[in-house]
Structures are given as structure tokens and as C-alpha cells.
């Protein structure tokens, strides 16, 4: 409020009875309030403030000291005399339990038995070898039969016969397979099967020695050999026998 406004207001209050009355009322109220405040301050005189200050400082210091000591006391509380029997009992329980565990463990109750080693009898192993040989021989005979049948049926009108490229490749593979099959047959004591497979092998050797394109004479010679030795029949009979003797 500027000085001019303040002066105008003061002038208005002096000339306006209502406003002057209100100002007097407020002044009286504030005087009463200040007087009440003064009385409150006088009421303070009824308190011994020196003793009060000492009481406060003592309480603060006591609280501060307690706060510093209390954590230690909390830690020690569990180990106090009151809980000594409990702690002793707990310790005894732990010792007894540990001893019982030690004894039980030593007795071997918890020890796992060693895993049994795999064992197979020689008889079982012999049967396995025989079965393996039987399957390999059957496969060999099957494939040989296809090659020989093809050779027997591919004769042309001119009298010459010709092996397909696939049959020639199969012949070479069968020769390799026979080398692998020999020890198996011997081990399994399959002498009859080995004799027939040897004849087939011999035939395949002769076939491999000639080129893919056989002369009619060569072709006739091999076909005669197959017929003469009844190789296809033997293959058929041996296959049947091996299929029936499945382990």
C-alpha cells in the first residue's frame, strides 16, 4: 500500500463511523490475543525451566547411550544366562545328531551298491554272431540272386548278353561284401552257406574279369556254369533255410 493510499484509508476510517468501529473491534481482539499470549508467557513462569532443560538433556543423553549399547545387548541377549540351558540343549542335540549320522554313514546304510558290470555268456555272444552272420548272408544271397537272374534273362536276339551298369556295380560291391562276410561265416560255423557263397563269389570273379559287354560264348559259358551248379536253386534253398532258422 502506498503512502497516499495509506493516508486515504486512515482518513476514511476517521470519518466513517462503521469502519472506525470495526477497526476498534479488531484492535481490541488483537490486544486481547496479545494479552492472552502474554498470559501464556507468564504461565511459563510456573515451570522450572532450568530443571526442565536438565531433564531433557539427561533424557536425550540416556537415549543416545542406550541406542549405542542396545545393538550389543541385542546380540548378547541370546547368549545371556536365561538362554544358557536352551543353548546347551541345542549344542548337545547337534553333537548327538552328528555322532548318529557318522555311525549310520559308517555302517554303509547310505552307501550305494556299485553298479553291476554288463555280463553276457559266451553262448549268448555266439548266438548274436550267428544271427548277424545269418542276416548278412541273407542280404548277400538276395542281392546275388538279382544279379544272376538279370544275367540269365538279358540275352539278346543276337546271342550276346549285356550287364547293366547297375548290375556291374552291384557285382563289385558283392565281391567286397563277401570278403567281410567270410570271417563271420567261419565264426558262426555256417559251412554250407559259406560253400554256396564261395561258388557265387567265384562266378562274380569271372564276371568281373570280363567287360560289361560279353561275347555270346562268354555269356553262354557263365549261364552254363550257373545252370550246371544249380546256383540259383541253391541260393533259393539256402535263403529258405536261413529264414526259417531265425534266432
Amino acid at each position, binding site marked *: 500500500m502506498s503512502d497516499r493510499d495509506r493516508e486515504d484509508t486512515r482518513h476514511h476510517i476517521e470519518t466513517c463511523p462503521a469502519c472506525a468501529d470495526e477497526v476498534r473491534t*479488531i484492535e481490541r481482539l488483537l490486544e486481547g490475543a496479545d494479552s492472552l499470549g502474554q498470559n501464556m508467557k507468564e504461565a511459563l513462569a510456573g515451570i522450572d525451566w532450568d530443571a526442565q532443560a536438565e531433564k531433557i538433556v539427561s533424557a536425550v543423553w540416556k537415549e543416545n547411550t542406550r541406542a549405542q549399547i542396545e545393538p550389543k545387548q541385542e546380540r548378547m541377549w541370546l547368549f545371556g544366562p536365561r538362554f544358557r540351558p536352551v543353548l546347551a540343549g541345542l549344542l548337545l542335540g547337534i553333537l548327538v545328531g552328528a555322532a548318529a549320522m557318522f555311525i549310520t554313514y559308517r555302517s554303509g546304510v547310505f552307501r550305494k551298491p556299485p553298479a553291476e558290470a554288463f555280463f553276457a555268456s559266451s553262448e549268448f555272444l555266439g548266438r548274436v554272431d550267428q544271427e548277424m552272420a545269418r542276416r548278412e548272408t541273407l542280404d548277400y544271397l538276395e542281392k546275388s540272386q538279382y544279379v544272376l537272374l538279370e544275367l540269365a534273362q538279358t540275352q539278346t536276339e543276337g546271342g550276346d548278353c549285356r550287364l547293366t551298369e547297375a548290375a556291374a556295380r552291384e557285382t563289385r560291391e558283392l565281391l567286397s561284401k563277401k570278403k567281410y562276410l567270410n570271417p563271420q561265416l567261419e565264426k558262426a560255423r555256417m559251412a554250407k552257406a559259406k560253400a554256396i557263397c564261395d561258388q557265387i563269389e567265384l562266378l562274380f570273379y569271372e564276371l568281373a574279369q570280363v567287360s560289361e559287354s560279353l561275347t555270346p560264348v562268354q555269356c553262354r559259358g557263365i549261364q552254363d556254369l550257373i545252370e550246371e551248379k544249380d546256383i540259383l536253386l541253391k541260393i533259393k534253398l539256402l535263403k529258405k533255410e536261413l529264414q526259417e532258422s531265425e534266432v
Partner: protein
Amino acid sequence: MEELRTTPHEHISTLLEKAGEGDRQAFKDLVSLYQQKVFLLAYSILRNREDALDVVQETFMRLYQKLSAYEKDRNFQAWLLQIAKNLSIDFYRKHYGKRREMEADRSVEELQLAADDRRSNPESSELRTVISRNLERLGERQRLIFVMKHFNGLEYREIAEVLGISVGTVKSLHFKAVRNLKNWLSPQLGMQP
């Protein structure tokens, strides 16, 4: 009380520093300097002498715990009264509640007993009684501001610091408190409401 307002800031800072280092006497000096102001503020809120003394003790306990957090540039008195105000309001909300009216009546009697009022005339004594009683009808902030202004003798700026509000808000709330009291006390003040 006048001495407190002229206490040099450096002296207070020194006392605070020493108290923070564990100097008992320095802390006691601080208590002696400010306990009455804290009491008046607590008393104006709680209207009960014993409760107010409890709050004074609690305020200084809290002060000791927070000494390390005090910023030197801050107004110490405002900070301390802010702690006292918060504790008083907490205490009031926790323990008073519905007892408010009853406590107000009792506190008036207590005031009259405590104060040596024989020098005053009966009319002003009655006025003080009704002012005291009607203070309870004011809102919390209006009452606090009125009490701090007239009972504690704080400036608007100091009240603003204690309450954490602007000086303008303090002036506005003080004006509303005076207006309300004037309206309620019109008969006693010899004026038509």
C-alpha cells in the same frame, strides 16, 4: 524471549557444532535458549501443559538425532519449530481426536490457574477466556499462524519458514483467522456481528 531473537547466528552455529560433537553443556544451552518457544508452540496446539512438555522433550530428542542433517545456512529457530509443530500435530492426532472440545475447556481453566490474572480487570479476563476457547474453532493452519504470531511473537517471515508456505499465504490465513474471531466474538467485543 526478546533475548532469543537477538541471539547471534554464529553463536547458535557454534553451539550446534559442539552439541553434534557430543558436548553436553552446548546442547543444554540450546535447550535453555529454545525450550520455551517450543513449549508455547506445542501448548498452543495441544492446550495441555504436560503433553506440551512431553513434546518439548521429544522435539529436542529429535533435534539431537538430526544435528548432522542441519544445514548451516538455514534458520535454526524455524527448523526447530517446524520439528515441534510436526510432533505436536502428530501427538494431537494420535491422542486427542474426539477429546478436542473437552480439552479446550480444560485448557482454558488451566491457563487461568497458571496465570496470575489478579492484576487484570474482569472484562479483559473474560475476553481472553473467549478468545482462547474460540481459537479451537479455527482451522489448523489459521490457529497455528494466529498462535505463532501473537503468542510466540514470530514475524510473518518466520512463520512462513516454520510452516513451509509463502509469506503471502501466512498473511492471508492470519487475516482470515482475525476475521473469523471477530465475527465469533462480536458480542464480547461490543459490536454487532
